[in-house]
Each structure stands twice: as C-alpha cells, then as structure tokens.
C-alpha cells in the first residue's frame, strides 16, 4: 500500500494578490482564497487570509479603521463601514461610498 502525502490546509498555497498602486490598502485576489491561505503580492509582500475570499474580490492588506478610506488604484473607492483587520474580505458588508 502506498501512502500519499497528507494535504495540509494550514501550510496553504499562496494565491496571487494584485495591488495596483503602492498606496493601496486592498488587493484583488486572482483565485479563490480559503481562511489561512497566504495572499502574496508581486513584490513578495504577504498577508494571511482571515476568511474565505472569492476570486476577484478584495483582501485588506492591513488594518483599516471604521471611517478610513479604502484605497485601490491609489485612489479612494469608499470608506470602511466597520473596523477591518488585515486579511479580511472587503466588499459591501464593510465598504461603502456615498455617491
């Protein structure tokens, strides 16, 4: 009988995160992310996902306080509507912009 190596979820594969501008405090994940996965940017910077994040969605690269600007493309895309921790999923539940 041959034994296969056990897949270890916590050692986790790295998923590509795309940050466009150095000021950005979120990155877009290029693949589906599970809690505990590492999101790695092109410059080698890493953040560990705190929760599942669907492909194409945004991950917080650092803590973002409630009311603070969420930055993508080097520009404000809205404000955090609650405190966001590094590695958390950023979408409509915690980011909004009054038009």
């Amino acid at each position, binding site marked *: 009988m041959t034994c296969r190596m056990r897949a270890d979820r916590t050692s986790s594969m790295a998923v*590509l995160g*795309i940050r*466009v501008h150095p000021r950005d405090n979120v990155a*877009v994940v*290029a693949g589906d992310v599970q809690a505990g996965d590492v999101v790695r940017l092109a410059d080698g910077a890493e953040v560990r996902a705190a929760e599942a994040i*669907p*492909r*194409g*969605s*945004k991950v917080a690269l650092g803590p973002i306080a409630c009311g603070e600007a969420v930055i*993508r*493309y080097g*520009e*404000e*895309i*809205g404000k955090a509507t609650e405190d966001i921790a590094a590695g958390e999923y*950023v*979408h*409509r539940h915690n*980011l*909004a*912009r*009054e*038009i």
Partner: protein
Amino acid sequence: MSEDFVFEGWRRPDGRIGIRNHCLVLATVACATGVVREVWRRLPEVVAVEHAYGCGRGGPDLGLQVKTLAGLVQNPNVGAAVLVGLGCEVVSAALLKGALASSGKRVETVVIQEAGGSRKAADQAEALARRLLGELEELPRQRATAADLTVGLECGGSDTFSGLTANPAVGKATDRLVELGGTAILAETTEMIGALGPLLKSAESEEVAAKLKAKVERQEARARETLGPLADAVMAPGNVESGLTTIAEKSLGCITKGGSSPIREVVDYADRPGRKGLVVMDTPGYDVESMAGMAAAGAQAVLFTTGRGTPVGFPAVPVIKISSNSELFEAMPDDIDLDAGTILAGKSIDQVGEQILDLLLRVARSEKTRAEINGQAVFAIAQEGPAF
C-alpha cells in the same frame, strides 16, 4: 507594425474614411421596424436599424433622436441608406433626409402610409436597397491610416479584473492610436463618478477640466437624486457579484481605457469631436446607448472590454470584444475576439495593448469581429430622462 497602420477604406463625400461599406435600412420611427425587418429578411446584406423611438416624446428627446439617427447615417462606415418612415410621426423620413442634406450621402426614403401598406413599402425599400448595394460595390477603396480612425472605447459587464487587464491594455492601444494621429473617445460619464482626480490631471486645459468636472458632477447629482445616496442601481448586479463594491472602484478601472494621453476635448452625446487624440463624450454607462453616441459621432470601430461577457454588437460599426479574464474567453468563445486575461498569467499590459492595436488594424482591413459574424446589431439612444 504600427508604423504600417495602413488599410484600404472608402472615402465619403465629407472626407472621412469608412472601414465598412454598408447600406443601412433604417426605421425613422418604431412603427416602421416591421418593414425594416422584412427588408433585412429578404436582403441580409443590408444593415437593419430597428428601435423604439421617433415619436411620442418631448422636444429635447426628439432632438437627441434626430441627431443620433442622422449621425448614424453619416457614420463613414455607411455608404448609403434607405429611411423607412410611417407617415404621421415626428421623426419622419423627410425630416431625417433634410437633416442629412449637407452630408452628400445617398439617401432614399419610403413612407409606409404613402406606399400602400407594409408589404408594398417593403417591396419599395428592397428595390431601393438593391440598387444602392449595387452602387456601393462600384465605389473604389483608398489608402488610409490610423489618423483616419475614430475609435469608441466601451466597457460592459465589468468585473474586478477589467481595471487590471482589459481596460489598461485598451489604454495602451489607445496611446498608440493617438501617437499615430488617430482619435479615441472615452465615454460613459456614469463610470467617471469617483474618478475625477486622475481624469482632471489628464485634461489638456483648464477649460477641458472644467467641462469634464461639470459633466461628471451633473451625472453624480442625477444618480443621487434618482437612485438615492448609495445609488446601488448605478452598478449592474453582475459587477457587484464579481467583487466590485463601489462606483468609484468601477470608474477608476473604467477610465484606464483612455490610456495616458491628454484629454483634448469634451463633447456632448452624439456630437462629432473637433479635435484629434483622446476626447471624452458625455454618455450614460449603459453600453448600447453609449455606443450609439460614439457611432453617431463617427467612430468606425469600438474597443469593448467585458469581464462578465456580453454578445452585443452595433449596426454598421464593428465592435471588438476583449475579455478581462481567460475563464470568460473560454466560456463564451463565440462572442469574444481577444483575451486580455493572459495578463493575469504573465503577459505584459504593453504586449496585450499591441495585440489589440493589431486586431484593430485587421478589423480595419475587413476582418469580421465576432459580433459581426453573429449578426449582433443592437441600437438604443440615450434620452434626457435620467439613464444610468
């Protein structure tokens, strides 16, 4: 290759160059669409234009309709047109023909009530279209370059990758087109909301910046007024599903289609730009209406990016569909012309920008786009009542 951006086009009486040589059969009013469709059934070589306008609206909207329909007939890809009216409508065949008098274009009219009904009107329009098609075949082609092109920029069904792959790659192609003397139209004012910072930096003059700011602020105010402070409906549900959260996020990705060229001019919906290079047109984000504005202004082709996938094409104007992700390219291969999702797999934005420019040249040299092959030709006009 771009130094050799040369193709054979058709020179129109106003001097502009077409990359297609179409005969339009165009309804001047919704009531005439059945006849137009019948002519197209009998004679698929014509480009049928069907729509829901032409009567029953107030002055400003009817003005926009006449401007847009007349602009479409004047588009350089159109060699001749048969206008089919009903007879009692506001935007009649005679009125539209009058608006086209100075264009020098071959225009014939058919009026259903005068022809003796729909069947006889279809017979008349078919006979006229056959004659015009024959005349168009005789027109010689002439050497033309990128400087003869006006290209509309459009996105429809955006996702979070649109602003990372397809849109900036189109931006590179736009930069190259502008370097070569051509014109590109960045439209969709709704998708400039929240992106005024970078846009105003690109404005060539204070006058251009002021006009741009006024247009975007007006659209933002209308969105707030109609849709409420969070203006959720300003984005399509599919945008949000893909991970886009706010209109500013969508806009910042959208405007990268304009590349890094200075914005030379801001024009109203369906107005022809007076300047070459990158210009902005005030249009809704709703892509079919936006394309109608650019086609009426003379765009001979549209570069259209999509993340969710869309089949839409436009009458007489080739629409080049570029996917933001490779999954879409694989899922809807019959609708997408080029995959910019390869950028996520390591291709550079510059490389894909060159691919797009090369495809644009091939289309100018008569290669058919997927939307043309599929016979996709959807037409709608922006109206003064708010449209987002």
